[in-house]
């Protein structure tokens, strides 16, 4: 059995921009630009980046909820040989879908208001056509119990539930088919602080019980730090840094990661943050800067950064896309 459950190679997604009367397209947005990474079985990979960095698009691409422009997405499931899901036909993909699932951001719009909780959770099972009605019922009850939903509430409709409860329904729906890999796209950001903690705990518990691998997408670094084993930092459709979380927070090697961490508001009035301000805003992805995409906002940029795009280099398990990674001694965020 392969160690990596998912290997992504040179994945890109371009969205064409249509203009004018004939809707011709001569420009495109590179939402995800030549991205490669792998996820190990049983780990949680955190994916962080600002809005517009392409993290949601990447999350959808790896499930093939969206067709990529180029690249490979290879899964190694526990009972099968490796499959590149981009080469699969629709029917074959259908079978794979029960192994890869998604938990969405907004628990209010991601549940159909006309379906009961039981039907929402059972929908994926029904679509699979492998179970009888009574089997489905049993599975729904089992999974609802695991997600700490009250079994008496299964006949109710989503509107009767609070945000946290709805997110539990969303999680139960994703886990009903026993997936091996789950993408969580900002799954706790819409929740209140006290509820958020419960859902994060639930994700962790279920991971242990069901042996699930997560791709956890979020913009809140303190949550990502809490839940992830490794973290990927994205900027303008590219991965700029990848490392296990301790290494990343103790020894960031990309200036963008340094700036991102320095901007985390610390819940401690005596430790005032000292943010490193990035000039300007995230550039327009239709027409990205030459050289390193980050150079117009980078405090350490040199002439070389303006001309040459850095390739990703490995320092052990720490991968960075920066020309000056070794020579810069960036600010440590925390010592573990």
């Amino acid at each position, binding site marked *: 059995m392969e160690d990596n459950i998912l290997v992504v190679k040179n994945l890109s997604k371009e969205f064409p921009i249509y203009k004018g009367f004939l809707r011709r397209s001569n420009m495109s947005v590179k939402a995800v630009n030549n991205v490669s990474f792998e996820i190990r079985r049983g780990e949680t990979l955190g994916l962080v980046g*600002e809005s517009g960095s392409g993290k949601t698009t990447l999350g959808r691409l790896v499930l093939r909820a969206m067709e990529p422009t180029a690249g490979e997405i290879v899964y190694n499931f526990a009972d099968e040989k490796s499959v590149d899901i981009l080469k699969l036909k629709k029917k074959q993909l259908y079978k794979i879908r029960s192994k890869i699932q998604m938990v969405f951001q907004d628990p209010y719009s991601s549940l159909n208001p006309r379906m009961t909780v039981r039907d929402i959770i059972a929908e994926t099972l029904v679509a699979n056509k492998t179970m009888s009605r009574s089997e489905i019922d049993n599975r729904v009850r089992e999974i609802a119990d695991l997600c700490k939903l009250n079994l008496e509430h299964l006949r109710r409709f989503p509107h009767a539930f609070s945000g946290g409860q709805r997110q539990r329904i969303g999680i139960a729906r994703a886990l009903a088919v026993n997936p091996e890999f789950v993408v969580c796209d900002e799954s706790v950001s819409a929740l*209140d602080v006290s509820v958020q903690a419960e859902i994060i705990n639930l994700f962790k518990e279920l991971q242990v019980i069901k042996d699930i691998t997560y791709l956890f997408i979020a913009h809140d670094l303190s949550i990502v*730090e809490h839940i992830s084993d490794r973290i990927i930092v994205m900027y303008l459709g590219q991965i700029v840094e990848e490392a296990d979380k301790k290494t990343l*927070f103790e020894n960031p090697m990309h200036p963008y990661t340094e700036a*991102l961490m320095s901007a985390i508001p610390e819940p401690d*009035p005596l430790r005032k*943050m000292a943010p490193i301000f990035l000039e300007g*805003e995230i550039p327009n992805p239709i027409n990205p800067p030459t050289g390193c995409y980050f150079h117009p906002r980078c405090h350490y940029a040199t002439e070389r950064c303006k001309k040459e795009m850095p390739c990703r280099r490995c320092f052990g398990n720490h991968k960075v896309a920066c020309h000056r990674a070794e020579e810069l001694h960036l600010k440590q965020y925390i010592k573990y």
Partner: protein
Amino acid sequence: MDKKTLLEVKDLSVYFNLREGVLKAVDGVSFNVDKNSTVGIVGESGSGKSVTAQAFMRILPDTAEIKTGEINYYKDPDNPIKIHALPDKSPILSNIRGKEISMIFQEPMSAFSPLHTIGHQMIECLMLHTPMTKQEARERSIEMLAKVGISNPDKRVDQYSFELSGGMRQRAMIAIALSTNPSIVIADEPTTSLDVTIQAQILKLMKDMQQEFNMSIIFITHNLGVIAQMADTIQIMYLGKIMESGTAEEIFYEPRHPYTINLLKAIPKIGSNTGGKLEAIPGQIPGPFDIQKGCKFCTRCPSAIKGLCDQRSPEIKKYSETHSVFCWKCLEQEK
């Protein structure tokens, strides 16, 4: 009354008269806003923090009414303006809105009119509240846009809100709010929709502007990290009531109320408990119409005292001049 006090809120209650019944959004809230200080109001959704702020400017929805309480604005220390008692269309009230007290909203996209340029909206506000001519107001707008760090302000002033990015829009909103030189700025979740790096910039900008314009800020948020960085004093709200209030240090280092203590434990802290479990608050926030006697938090409180907490509203317990808690457990410990 203290000389430093600028805004005094006494026993404020705001009720919504809805078809389903009476919703007590704010229920007996009291606190003071001192000159040149930042008061943080922290609470989860439904805690009434935004409604409290709306009451200060009397911009509550039609279904809401100020049931009891006072909002006194001490522009002149001897002659306070009673905001709660002003008639709806009073000229004093329109002078307060936007001139004395102004507001920074959460959603910079929906707070601006998409039909008018940024400059138009700034000039409108300035001409309404100051004796400036249109030309002067335009110059002042450009000056303000430059002050909040918008590049090419003379070009931006003629642009529409949708032409600006999220961070720029929030800067423009701060520029409008500050253009009339208000004494109090209410910031209702001003950075919630922004990225962390932009959030840090906006928070810095607000602090710098506070220094420059000598104003008080009422900062409303659910983010405990942001409030720790910004506030001098903090009010913790839950279901329309203040649970605990104190200086930022008192709240974060010596929290007394079970709700505050649990809230602080529920947020993940970087580097502290790697892989450990977070301590979530059990249960969920009760619905607004689930009328309950006693302390509002007693349904979820780990140290609730049966027969006391669920029967009678807790009284105030003062730990210091600034630090007070509404909790029976804290009162019982005293005895």
